[in-house]
């Protein structure tokens, strides 16, 4: 029973911290402390948001960007999962693959954009590939790490209970690693948004990153702010949904502090 007020105050504090930032923003802009070309007032940003909402471009661009993030990230997760698991379980496989991954991990994705455009043009696939490249190599290492850290006793118990190699992957390693994997997914999906904006700012005809870049040319800082706020909001919602999903699929997990 003691937990409830605590949770409430946690929410209150989170809300308050947002209020403080907005208040500071209001004071700076309405008070005339900053040039409105550099920082638009909340009213201006609200107006451009509602205008974009009215002509439908807000929803459309949000949809395009979210879809790019999800598709690119989805394929990276699908590919990283088996490779990371195998790396954690087989020394040989790890010896073959780890150096490549470590090398690729340090290649800045931005530096790969020209190549992807050469190979794939500026269609959707190029966006997916950028997001894939940005998240895949990191995710493989994270999956490997998560899988390595599961309790060895569980695997040994399964082996002595007669589970074969495949069954150990499907019935022990995967479920045991799932809580950690969900955290890995949550983190990398955040990075996927970063790479999306990279991809959209270089070559795109739609998307939130594209809007931001286009607005820069017209000094439309209110639209830039609107775009940034939308990315933040979508990020918050994704994170929230993934947290709920985690709680639904691994209800058995004992989280520290629960």
């Amino acid at each position: 029973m003691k937990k409830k007020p605590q949770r409430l105050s946690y929410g209150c504090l989170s809300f308050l911290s947002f209020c403080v930032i907005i208040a500071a923003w209001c004071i700076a802009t309405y008070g005339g402390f900053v040039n409105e070309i550099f920082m638009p007032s909340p009213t201006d940003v609200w107006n451009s948001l509602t205008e974009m909402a009215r002509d439908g471009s807000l929803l459309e661009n949000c949809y395009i960007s979210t879809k790019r993030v999800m598709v690119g990230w989805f394929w990276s997760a699908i590919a990283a999962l088996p490779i990371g698991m195998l790396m954690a379980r087989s020394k040989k496989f790890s010896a073959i693959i780890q150096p490549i991954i470590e090398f690729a991990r340090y290649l800045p994705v931005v530096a790969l954009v020209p190549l992807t455009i050469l190979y794939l043009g500026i269609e959707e696939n190029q966006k997916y590939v950028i997001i894939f490249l940005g998240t895949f190599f990191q995710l493989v290492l994270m999956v490997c790490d998560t899988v390595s850290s599961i309790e060895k006793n569980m695997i040994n118990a399964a082996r002595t209970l007669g589970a074969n190699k495949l069954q150990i992957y499907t019935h022990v390693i995967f479920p045991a690693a799932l809580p950690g994997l969900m955290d890995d997914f949550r983190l990398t999906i955040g990075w996927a948004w970063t790479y999306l904006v990279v991809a959209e700012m270089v070559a795109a005809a739609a998307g939130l990153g594209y809007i931001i870049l286009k607005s820069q040319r017209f000094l439309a800082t209110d639209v830039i702010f609107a775009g940034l706020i939308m990315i933040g909001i979508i990020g918050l919602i994704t994170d929230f949904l993934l947290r709920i999903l985690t709680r639904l699929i691994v209800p058995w997990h004992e989280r520290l502090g629960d």
Partner: protein
Amino acid sequence: MDNIKLKVSNLQKVFPAANRRERDVVALKDINLEVKESEFVVMVGPSGCGKSTLINIIGGLEDATQGSVQIDGKEVTQPGADRGMVFQGYSLFPWLTVQKNVEFGLKMKKVPKAEREKISREFIRLIGLSGFENALPKQLSGGMKQRVAIARTLANHPEILLMDEPFGALDAQTRVVMQELLARISRETKNTILFITHDIDEAILLADRIYVMSRRPGTIREVLEVKIEGERSHEMLVTPEFLEMKRKIMDMLWQESQDAALDK
């Protein structure tokens, strides 16, 4: 009657040196042991004598450098359902309910669901956890978790039960309760059991025969029969026969520990 279930012959385990400056470590040397059908054998030895390595080799989780492990006369090198293991540490599957944990081995063997449920219920009752079928491991105490681990292994009908200090992490009171429970189970189910511990009381309380091990390189120092009549319970801990036996084993182990402390 005296069928030999498990036979370990001339077993040796050497851990090769990690680099040239170090020497190979001989963990186990000339290990010969037998466990007869329905017998409860306990190996007791000082920590670091390689007893966990030994049980892992028998379970197929580690390779022996030399020697053989036979179950019913057949050599084994890989883990298998014929040798069920219970570990000291946490080894239940936390995402499965008590019942699903107990059914795990049967499910791997593709035993039909109805039969699985019947068997698991029977063993959950045996370990005294009826009513907890749908509980998750995180809702159970340490002792209850270990009960489930025992039921999970028994439900799989292993030829032999290998137990690696299963009660080592429990508090003293719970440990005695669990020892009595295990003594009762072994009497009722006639399972063949090889049990490892460094706790002398536990060894005498449970065993038909005790193998006393020496410290590294682990060898078998003595084999003792426990000829104490009557039910195995905490009450026997203070009987003269028990204490005499305890003194004998303590003397052996004390010498070993003494050597270990001085690192002779």
